């Protein structure tokens, strides 16, 4: 009966009040919603922050998430980007083991293909910085598995709707350009 679960990107504009994040996180916890990732930072308007959630759920659950968020007094706006054309990005730092010069060359080559920057170099490891969408992150991690990932950290996704125009607007299915170089 229930519709399939899907991943949604929701951004929430909130008043910068102490404890607002606790309210949102608490709401997710007590209503049994799953947060895949969460990021928070100040927005362009002083006193307001923008948080981006990635949540998993069937359409009814996602509708409830949005309605319950909207009920919070400190929440000004809830946008489900999944329904619109949006840009989303994530930042990752990943430390990969290096076991000799050959591997080092190979890693540099892969990094170049992904447009990943090397931000720390030592004899036994490299730290890469990578931005992009979720698919790109996952693809890069997949490649790095063979070398040995020592540590990694991801910021979680942030998202904004695209402006209407040649590459934007509702219903425009053009993929973000850099997706091309990982497939």
């Amino acid at each position, binding site marked *: *009966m229930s519709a399939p679960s899907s991943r949604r990107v929701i951004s929430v504009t*909130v008043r910068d009040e102490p*404890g607002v994040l606790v309210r949102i996180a608490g709401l997710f916890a007590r209503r049994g919603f799953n947060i895949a990732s969460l990021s928070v930072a100040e927005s362009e308007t002083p006193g307001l922050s923008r948080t981006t959630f990635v949540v998993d759920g069937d359409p009814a659950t996602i509708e409830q998430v949005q309605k319950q968020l909207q009920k919070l007094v400190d929440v*000004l706006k809830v946008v489900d980007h999944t329904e619109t054309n949006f840009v989303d990005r994530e930042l990752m730092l990943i430390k990969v083991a290096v076991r000799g010069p050959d591997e080092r060359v190979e890693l540099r080559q892969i990094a170049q293909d992904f447009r990943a920057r090397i931000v720390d170099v030592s004899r036994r490891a490299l730290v890469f910085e990578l931005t992009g969408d979720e698919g790109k992150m996952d693809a890069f991690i997949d490649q790095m598995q063979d070398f040995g990932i020592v540590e990694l950290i991801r910021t979680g996704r942030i998202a904004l709707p695209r402006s209407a125009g040649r590459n934007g607007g509702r219903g425009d299915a053009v993929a973000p350009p850099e997706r091309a170089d990982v497939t």
Partner: protein
Amino acid sequence: MNGAEVVIRALERHGVEVAFGHPGGAIMPVYDAIYDGNVRHVLVRHEQAGAHAADAYYRASGKPGVVIATSGPGATNLVTGLATAMMDSSAVVAITGNVPTSLIGTDAFQEADVYGITGPVTKHNFLVKRVEDLPRVIAEAFHIATTGRPGPVLVDIPKDVQQAAFEGDVDAEIEVDLPGFQPTWSGHAGQIRKAAEAIRAAERPVLMVGGGGQVAAPEVMAFAERLGVPVITTLMGIGAYPAGRDQSLGMPGMHGTVTSNRAITHCDLIIGAGLRFDDRVTGKISRFAPNATVVHIDVDPAEISKLVHAHVPVVGDLRDVLPRLADELGPLDVEPWWAQLREWKARYPERYKTEKPLVSQEVIELMRDVVGSDAIVATDVGQHQMFAARLYPTNAPRTWITSGGLGTMGFGLPAAIGAAFANPGTPVVLIAGDGSIQMNIQELATIRKHDLPIFIAITNNGVLGMVRQWQELFHAQRYSEIFLADSNPDFAKVAEAYGIEGHNVFDRETAQALVPEVVARGGPALLNFVVYESEKVFPMIPAGAGVDEMMIGDQEPDAEATS
């Protein structure tokens, strides 16, 4: 003027006449201001009771209830009361003291993270760190508590903020500016039109009214009259439409009437007005109203399609939506439907067997017949609550006070107190059980102190009756931890110890003779009726079963009934 005086002045300005509460260290400046202020303070003997009393004060009057408590244990004692108010959408403003800001986070004496603890059980809460914010915060608290779907709001005020000098104009007008809080009052015209179309097409419609109907009783009445539609009132909706009228089918759900539940199963349209389709109402969702188009009108959009899919959602206040909807509609031609409903009603009247010792049902009917239907009826939680909902439902809004959503045992006694303060001079009947009365029995002191016209009827079956019923029916008669009789107090003596008239009643004849006598004296009084232990509430839909899977108990079954 200090922060505490600002608080009391703000309460006065918001029209608060009565506040319930209990003092303590971190709220002492506020109590010092109460000493000189114009807010009448009612000292309760437990903060939980204060919260319930404030909650019931709102339910009975429509004016926000106020409760005041100290930090730490005072505030944590409010939690059950706030959760109760939250579930039943009751406008409560709770004011708590906290340790001075310099000590917050240091595990100071009587410190608890009240802001954190009460977040999930309030509509909104505040921790006030600057005295200059107090007038604005209190204005926002009242605005949030009473606007849209009502609910409890807590304002936590550290002691140093209460003591700090306030330099502004305490009486300055405050424009509440909350861009994130803009509840919808007015229903969308297009949705109302769609709702009217759906209703016009219906052959077997029902109007289901929930707690939201308490604010819109005249609109509910006008709507029901115009359409001639059968009316089902949920536990929270009792009184929003008079139970005694022909159009009323009674309560739906787990312990609802046969007629209401049958109507839900067979109807082709539900107009849900100010209700949230609680699981105790719907039973198993997939078997709930399988043939019905659902028009759901509620002020809270999050309730729409939360549990039962709404084919036509209308977000708005019933006071706006129902008259506009009625304007689009005339009387519905649903006579065949009414013929069926009347047949069920005639076949399944309220019935119980009395060829046994005194039973709870007749005690409740006796109270109803003697005190009358103009009284306010408060209940505790359990079997007696369901019996009361079925046998002593009231006919006017804001006269039926019960803990519906949270099902809080111990709610009844303080709720009766809150209702009595909300309606001075109106008699209040409390129907309680011997289990639940003991969860806040200390409030007999508050009743005594203010000589409130409260008649407490304990239907004392010596067990936790509802738990016993489930154990008998679903746990193979394994009666685990339900026996109270061997250690119950002598309730009449308890009442007398508090200076309240008390009687233990063991038989029918005494009950019939005594109740009119006691009621004539005006109260307060406690009547402890020792009743048949194994009486069960029927009909019953077992938890998780469908509305069409009712157990009808003592009733004569027909082809559709399971016994």
